[in-house]
């Protein structure tokens, strides 16, 4: 009971002590082991040990005369100008003052006093600043100078929707404050925590703060929480807003700042009890907007044409083109490069380099977009330019200077979840008006720009919705509901979200969690549910992992779970598909994709241990070294949680004939709701129960043996319906491992499936009877 005891002692909230689950495998003598390390509770340890050197400000420090929450901008300027760093006591570096000059040119700087006055007068503040105002880097620092975290040992948190942003902004702010990253300024993201007991300002992903809140419902370690990029309305930010809205009343000392880049500020204000608003103008130039006279027949084709036309006729300035996905982007980049070469040959145009930009692109390639535009081909020749072809990550999160022309076809890939067919998928959809404005704004960062919209003005007015739907309306809420339960939210129905989703979505989530035995019939968190919420994973994966020791293959399931948590490890370049497929065949396991991925991982680990260059090896075998490495680190993190929770790590002997069978059975323990059965004719499979959809196995699957029953990781919705990452299973396992879901007496799904399962059941009974008789 090591974990449970530890939790009980530390936690202020009794519900946390449910953390011990029935299914936890305990080792003998576990009781006298020291309390296991829990990363989410690290701060409590730190407090005990007195993490901060001093709890008063030393004499002679620039901050000596400061009174917490009563400081002025003037005081702060003086402290910033002083020779010694007010937080470390070290002398300031040369670079510091250089950066300081730049900081004082930012638009927010002028309003520092105004900000402080407002900050002092209210608990919740809505701050609106367009991109380029400097809010993300400056406001948290202003708060640090006012909150003086070293006095009360409470931190300031600033959330970011994306990991990359959290990391890069933290680095920038550490430089600005002339401290080492990970000391006074740190960051915390899903699989990495770069903070120390000295940390005062912590940048973190919104999801990370949410996970921390699960163990510390009062968020007691923070004195101020800043929600940045709230306009992006990620799932975690929405949940945090609702939690903080509640918490504000229980913790009057907690300050909350909601920062948004756009328009919809009134909505935030109203939601937070009519909180005051501070707006800072961005540093932007006017952008002229052009529409097409008629709707386009092919937006990719039209985009290509527009970019080339800009290059041929418009003056100097870089181009940003928004497209929807990796394939489309790579394809367009290739075509653009070819066309430009021809333009240079035939029309003596300037050079143009084309860079793709999308989420799964390796960071060093993402960095390329910041390279300056190429020089003219010859002296006095036409100026060169760069063209960036990007997904909507360039819409808000990445700021690229030098963009003067934006080409906007009006589409993006968006996650959509519909509880009626239980499908979560990425679909190409029309963007919102707010998105279109944001995209246009990207053209006015350095000088007046132009935005070419590849649709008519009428279409803009009539066909685009006002705001993009917040993520919470487009997601499966199973994970969220589990988190909320763990956060101590009892009344999920009246939980005060800014945009409450459809009731059906919640109903599905509750059902799913009930089938996974994470919630009981009353809707209460079960020990298994509580344990599952410890993992930063989907409930399906978490439950699969927790049950894996029962199938003697937790080591292998750990690997598979990690591989499923990272992007696809197989690389398949458009011009080398055959070679890539041949290489993939080397790892092929006839029983399915999960096992194939496991083979890849084992091979990868083997290479790592053999001393061969794994990067080289991955390249040769058309595997993504980056994704495999990140799977490796995810695995390490998950392994730590397994150990903390007392879940045994074990493997079946590789030579045992049940080695792979056990793994497949363990998969069923999590994925039993994602099963499809083959129809009598053709290659069509049909998904189970009320989710009655015809699907085909995705062409990328290795599964060739005709399995009648398969489980899948993902339902892909395009013009066809596919299931991806598929493994063959046996129907007996469904009845054995998920008897509640496959209870034939209450079966309301397809009749033929019931028939098939019935006969399997009979067979099983006969076999059992025969064994019993013997």
């Amino acid at each position, binding site marked *: 009971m090591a974990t449970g005891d530890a939790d009980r002692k530390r936690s202020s909230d009794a519900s946390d002590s449910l953390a011990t689950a029935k299914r936890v495998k305990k080792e003998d003598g576990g009781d006298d082991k020291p309390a296991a390390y829990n990363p989410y509770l690290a701060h409590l340890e730190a407090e005990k040990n007195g993490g901060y050197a001093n709890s008063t400000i030393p004499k002679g420090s620039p901050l000596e005369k400061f009174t917490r929450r009563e400081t002025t901008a003037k005081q702060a300027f003086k402290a910033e100008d002083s020779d010694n760093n007010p937080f470390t006591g070290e002398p300031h570096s040369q670079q510091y003052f250089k950066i300081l000059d730049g900081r004082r040119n930012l638009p927010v700087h002028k309003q520092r006093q105004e900000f402080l006055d407002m900050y002092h007068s209210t608990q919740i503040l809505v701050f609106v600043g367009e991109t380029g105002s400097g809010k993300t880097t400056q406001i948290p620092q202003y708060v640090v100078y006012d909150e003086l975290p070293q006095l009360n040992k409470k931190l300031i948190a600033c959330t970011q929707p994306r990991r990359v942003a959290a990391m890069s902004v933290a680095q920038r702010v550490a430089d600005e404050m002339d401290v080492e990253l990970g000391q006074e300024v740190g960051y915390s993201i899903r699989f990495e925590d770069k903070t120390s007991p000295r940390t005062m300002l912590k940048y973190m992903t919104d999801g990370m703060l949410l996970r921390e809140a699960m163990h510390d419902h009062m968020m007691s370690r923070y004195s101020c929480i800043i929600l940045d990029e709230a306009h992006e309305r990620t799932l975690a930010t929405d949940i945090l807003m609702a939690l903080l809205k509640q918490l504000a009343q229980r913790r009057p000392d907690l300050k909350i700042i909601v920062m948004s880049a756009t328009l919809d500020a009134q*909505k935030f204000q109203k939601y937070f009890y009519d909180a005051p608003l501070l707006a800072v103008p961005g540093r932007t130039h006017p952008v002229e907007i052009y529409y097409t006279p*008629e*709707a*386009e*027949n*092919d*937006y990719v084709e*039209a985009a290509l044409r527009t970019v080339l036309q800009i290059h041929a006729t418009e003056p100097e300035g870089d181009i940003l083109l928004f497209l929807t996905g990796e394939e489309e982007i790579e394809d367009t980049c290739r075509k653009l490069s070819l066309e430009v070469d021809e333009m240079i040959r035939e029309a003596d145009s300037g050079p143009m380099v084309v860079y793709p930009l999308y989420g799964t692109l390796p960071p060093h390639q993402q960095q390329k977009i910041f390279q300056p535009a190429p020089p003219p081909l010859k002296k006095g020749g036409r100026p060169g330019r760069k063209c960036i072809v990007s997904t909507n990550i360039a819409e808000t999160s990445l700021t690229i200077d030098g963009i003067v022309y934006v080409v906007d*076809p009006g*589409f993006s890939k968006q996650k*959509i*979840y*519909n509880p*009626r*067919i239980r499908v979560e998928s990425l*679909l190409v*959809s029309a963007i919102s008006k707010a998105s279109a404005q944001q995209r246009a704004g990207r053209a006015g960062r350095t000088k007046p720009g132009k935005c070419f919209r*590849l*649709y008519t003005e*009428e*279409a*803009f007015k*009539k*066909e685009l919705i006002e705001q993009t*739907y917040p993520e919470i*309306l487009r997601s499966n809420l199973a994970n969220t509901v589990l988190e909320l339960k763990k956060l101590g939210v009892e*009344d*999920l*129905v*009246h*939980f*005060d*979200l*800014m*945009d*409450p*989703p*459809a*009731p059906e979505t*919640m*109903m*599905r*989530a*509750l*059902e799913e969690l*009930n089938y996974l035995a994470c919630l009981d019939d*009353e*809707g209460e968190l079960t020990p298994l549910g509580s344990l599952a919420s410890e993992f930063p994973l989907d409930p399906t994966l978490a439950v699969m992992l927790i049950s894996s020791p029962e199938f003697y293959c937790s080591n292998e399931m750990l690997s598979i779970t990690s591989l499923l948590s990272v992007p696809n490890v197989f690389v398949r370049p458009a011009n080398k598909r055959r070679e890539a497929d041949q290489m993939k065949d080397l790892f092929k396991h006839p029983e399915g994709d999960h096992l194939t991925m496991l083979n890849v991982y084992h091979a990868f680990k083997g290479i790592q241990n053999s001393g061969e260059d794994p990067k080289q090896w991955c390249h040769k075998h058309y595997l993504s070294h980056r994704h495999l490495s990140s799977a490796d680190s995810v695995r390490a993190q998950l392994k730590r949680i397994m150990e903390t929770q007392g879940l045994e790590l074990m493997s079946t002997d590789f030579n045992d004939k049940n080695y792979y069978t056990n793994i497949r059975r363990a998969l069923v323990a999590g994925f039993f709701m994602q099963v499809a059965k083959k129809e009598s*004719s*053709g290659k*069509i499979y049909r998904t189970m129960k*009320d989710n009655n*959809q*015809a699907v085909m196995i995705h062409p990328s699957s290795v599964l060739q043996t005709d399995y009648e029953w398969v489980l899948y990781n993902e339902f892909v*919705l*395009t*013009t*066809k*319906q596919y299931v991806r990452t598929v493994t063959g299973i046996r129907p007996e396992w469904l009845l054995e491992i998920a008897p509640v879901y496959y209870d034939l007496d209450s079966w*309301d799904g397809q009749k033929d499936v019931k028939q098939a399962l019935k006969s399997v059941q009979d067979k099983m009974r006969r076999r059992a009877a025969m064994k019993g008789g013997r």
Partner: protein
Amino acid sequence: MPDSSEEEDYMSMDFLAGEANTTQPETSLQRRERLKREAAIRGRPKSKAELAAEEKAAREEALSRSLIDDARSLAAQKSKGLSMMKKMGFAPGGTLGARDNAYAKAEPVGLSIKEDRGGIGLDAQRKRALDEAAEREGVPKKPKVLDEGEFRERNRRERELKRWEGQAYGAQKVCERMDEERDAQAHTQSVATGEESEGDGSADEQKQKQKKKRTLSTRPLKSINVLWRGLVRQREEAERERRMRYDLEQSLSRLPTYEDENEDEDDRRALGKTKTAYVPVEDLEEEDPELDEFNALEPDEKLRRLVNYLRDEYQYCFWCKCSYPDEEMDGCPGLTEEDHD
């Protein structure tokens, strides 16, 4: 049946005829054929387009059905998720979140799959262009929303009208046949009284003549009962058409009525003109308001009149398909088709 005195001819194919006459709907061979055909249809792998359409239909169907309000399915009532929500104070039909949150969604966000690379507004623009073109052509705008119930009702009505039309046609034929039979009977009777020497065989002959007469009716149309006059008229019109075409084809490139002065008798014979006797059927050219009036009737009314006529004149019930000996028509359940169900 083979004669009993003769040896039974085991090679005889008579049994086939016997079997064909039985009421058995299909032979084993036919059955096998049918099953094979059906299996082939079932076993045929569906084309990609068919599959895509099926998938889409299934998806749309699922997407349009609310999980909570769906009274038809028991799933909603059995749903543990819903019962948990009810325990937290959720009422079906309500929304989540704080009480007066205007942003609360009642329905999940819809989902549409983009199947091509058409730009934003393309579909709307195409539709508009189509509408405009239609307007120019003067095609009346279609009613925007067609109720599903309305559509079904219209379809049903159309089917019914077609059926009645068919039945009325059948009834007309019965009327004509019965009428002819009665005339023939009257005729043979009169013949029999005049020339008793002729036997049964001549009566048969007579009947055959009568039959032939049907196609070459010389009776003035107006004397035929209006109930089936349309039938006769139609037939004669078809016949005239056929004859005219035949004549035209026979006429070797000239209109048969064309008189060429240079032709002598031989030429005419060679061109087959001597035979030509073009007699316009004046009857057919004439207006017939009575028939027009009858044709304008709704098919069910036509059918009703025909059925009544058959009952009154011949004690024949169109629905029972038989004649009754007396006026009471004992045993016939009634006047309408429904009565005979």
